[in-house]
């Protein structure tokens, strides 16, 4: 199976140099930010790796995982990290973040998919910076492929994937024929979430995403990483989404301390008016 995994880097929320908004409020200041991969994209990569191996012998790859990102040269670090973790090949589509919206990303990916012809695109359900949650859906529409969003589990069958998602009050399961688009939620990295046809049903993964051993990090340097110009994938680079203004959330007011439960209840009733 050949899988394409789009990756995005996002500002590290734990980093001391928090996101800043200049007084004009017209953009987000990105210089000096520290970056890390969007967590849902890391989950997508993990799911893709699980689909292309026997969980028992992950070093033997069965299939191909191609990772792709949009961004300037520095974003290659995100790709290298994915290559070190087990992806086979990487593509960087050269552009900068402020020249993109979900629609343009989806159109460029669709053009790339025409060339790459993957069996599945596994991607995060959304990026934690913009929280748009739309690239997967637009992409499925553009390609006219079946789609399964918010996947919590994926099981490979011949020519199809059985995908389940958590919904209110239960689990919805569907079978999508390949080629298909799957967007994943955080449950996808649980020990029994993803099974390729090669992995025994009794096998349990470690919880969470795998990380690269040091020799793999060094070996990843030899893996193929190519650059493509955005213009070669999307002639029309007009954006459909225009950001009007950015605003930092209001500073939190200091909390109060209550003496006892009675006071807590009174305050919740009278002041917070939530009871």
């Amino acid at each position, binding site marked *: 199976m050949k899988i394409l995994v789009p990756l995005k880097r996002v500002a590290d929320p734990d980093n001391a140099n928090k996101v800043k908004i200049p007084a004009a409020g017209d953009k987000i200041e990105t210089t000096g930010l520290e970056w890390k991969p969007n967590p849902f994209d890391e989950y997508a990569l993990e799911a893709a790796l699980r689909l292309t191996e026997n969980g028992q012998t992950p070093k033997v790859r069965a299939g191909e995982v191609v990772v792709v990102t949009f961004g300037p040269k520095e974003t290659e670090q995100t790709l290298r990290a994915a290559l070190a973790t087990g992806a086979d090949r990487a593509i960087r589509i050269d552009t900068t973040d402020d020249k993109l919206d979900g629609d343009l990303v989806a159109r460029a990916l669709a053009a790339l998919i025409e060339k790459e012809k993957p069996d599945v695109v596994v991607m995060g359900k959304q990026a934690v910076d913009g929280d748009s949650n739309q690239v997967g859906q637009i992409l499925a529409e553009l390609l006219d492929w079946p789609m399964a969003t918010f996947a919590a589990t994926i099981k490979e069958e011949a020519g199809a994937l059985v995908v389940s998602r958590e919904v209110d009050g239960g689990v919805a399961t569907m079978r999508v024929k390949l080629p298909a688009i799957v967007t994943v939620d955080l449950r996808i990295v649980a020990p029994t979430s993803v099974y390729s046809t090669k992995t025994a049903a009794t096998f349990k993964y470690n919880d969470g995403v795998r990380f690269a051993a040091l020799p793999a990090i*060094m070996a990843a340097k030899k893996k193929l990483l190519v650059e493509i110009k955005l213009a070669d994938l999307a002639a029309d680079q007009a954006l459909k989404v225009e950001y009007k203004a950015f605003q930092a959330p209001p500073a939190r007011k200091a909390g109060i301390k209550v003496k006892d439960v009675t006071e807590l209840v009174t305050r919740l009733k009278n002041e917070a008016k939530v009871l």
Partner: protein
Amino acid sequence: MPPMIEQSFMKALFHGVIAEDMIFPYPELPSDDRENTAMILDSVRRYFAANVDAAKIDREHAIPPEVMDGLKSLGLFGLQIPTDHDGIGLSASAYARVMQEVGGLDGSIAVTLGAHQSIGLKGILLFGTPEQKRKYLPKLATGEWTAAFALTEPSAGSDAAAIKTRAELSADGSHYVLNGAKIWITNGGFADVFTVFARTSSMEEGAKPKITAFIVERGMGVKNGPNEHKLGIRGSSTTELFFDDVKVPKENVLGEVGRGFKVAMEVLNSGRLGLASGSLGMCEVLLKLALERVNERRAFGRAIGEFGLIKDKVSAMLAQTYALESMTYLTAGIVDGKVSDYSLESAICKVFGSETLWYVVNDTLQIAAGIGYMQDYPYERMMRDARINLIFEGTNEILRCFIALSGMQGPGKALSDVVKAMREPIKGFGLLSDFAVRKARSVLGRERLTRAHPLLSREAVIFEEFTGELASNTELVLRKHGKEIAEMQFTQKRIAEMSIDLFAIASCIARTTRAIERRGEEGARREIDLTSIFTTAAQKRLRQNVHDFSRNDDELRKAVASRAYTDRAYPFDIV
């Protein structure tokens, strides 16, 4: 630049020469290396977060076997082994950065990994024959085999040349037979391969011993005692080793027969840098703890961080840690730049690193106060773990003597050459005039630090001034005391303290200059301020040390100590 007298920044400094091209521009990781190191750190953090419980390792006095296996499969046992021997092939700088991370995460693991590769297998890397490398490095790189460094003996700690373990060549010359015992050997409980130092000449009082280094496999008959119970780094294994007619093939001699002391010293020179970076990693974690605490803890209606005495501690800890980081990566960069003599610099890093850590852990614990003392919090464990760094790989006293005496060796030789030249004026003319030029320069004006950024001119002037003082006082004490200087430890200590502070200031200046050039004054505000604070504090110490060369109570102190040795106790009691 003046002709290079020494191949070492610090050794040149003892002549009063500021070899600034050796420290400017401040080194940095090549971008490729930086990217790899960032990924390695990411994997290390993830692995430790999911699998390592430092408090439990301390409590149970052991690193769990599955963690050891995990560390091995991660690749942490072969960090500096070249890739063609199946290692990761990190540069000294990248290695230091990884050890910094590990040092901050768990002291026991840091010491275990350090004993394996900073010293245990380092001899094979530095002195091994191609056959020895082929045989041992690949297995050591994966951790299938682990290594230890076995020098210390019951009657030979600091005085390593006094070791008694004997290596006797067999009658047919095919192997050596080792007999003796070692103590306090890190990884002694499980290591498979030992770098062992033994005497290959007979034991004669006063005679210079011939020491040889050997690669000894456990299977050749090495036995170990039980794990020692220790103050800190309790998860690391520290044991005695016993050699009872252990047969070692002559192919396993490491380096040259009789040159084992050199092997030991070279290994320790590079090992000390690892200790400094591990200490730095702990400082960083402690600062994080301290900075959380000062915001959270309230007293007298305010966060304790608002009190002046807390700010005083925090700023001083930051400045000191910045100096430590700056000198550690300057030295690592010097090593990567293939400068072969970094013995003074790495000794300075070890002393300054371990003492900075001790100071930072003490003040952080003080800020935490009551909870700092409780076992439910990490402070007391970190304090116990930190303490070893002042002791092993050369005690800080021994290293101070080493820094002073090794630094003064160049000027001492120059002086005696000059004395000789004066006896034979014609033959020695070249030498004399060279010396005269240097003299003239030091009289007419001090050596300049021209590459420091103008914003750091105050610090640069302090550095220049006390470089002049170091050189002139070195010359003074050498002229006055000659060979006797070897016995004058009070003076040695002053010289060493000055060297340490000067190297720290130079490191801060070089690094902050780079920061200003990259990011401008405002962008480099933090670095500029910390350089200023550190240099001001160092200046006070430097002044004091210079003052004390001529006005001190050394003799009185010696007398008081000697009298106390006969008293054998504190002599007073008010009852």
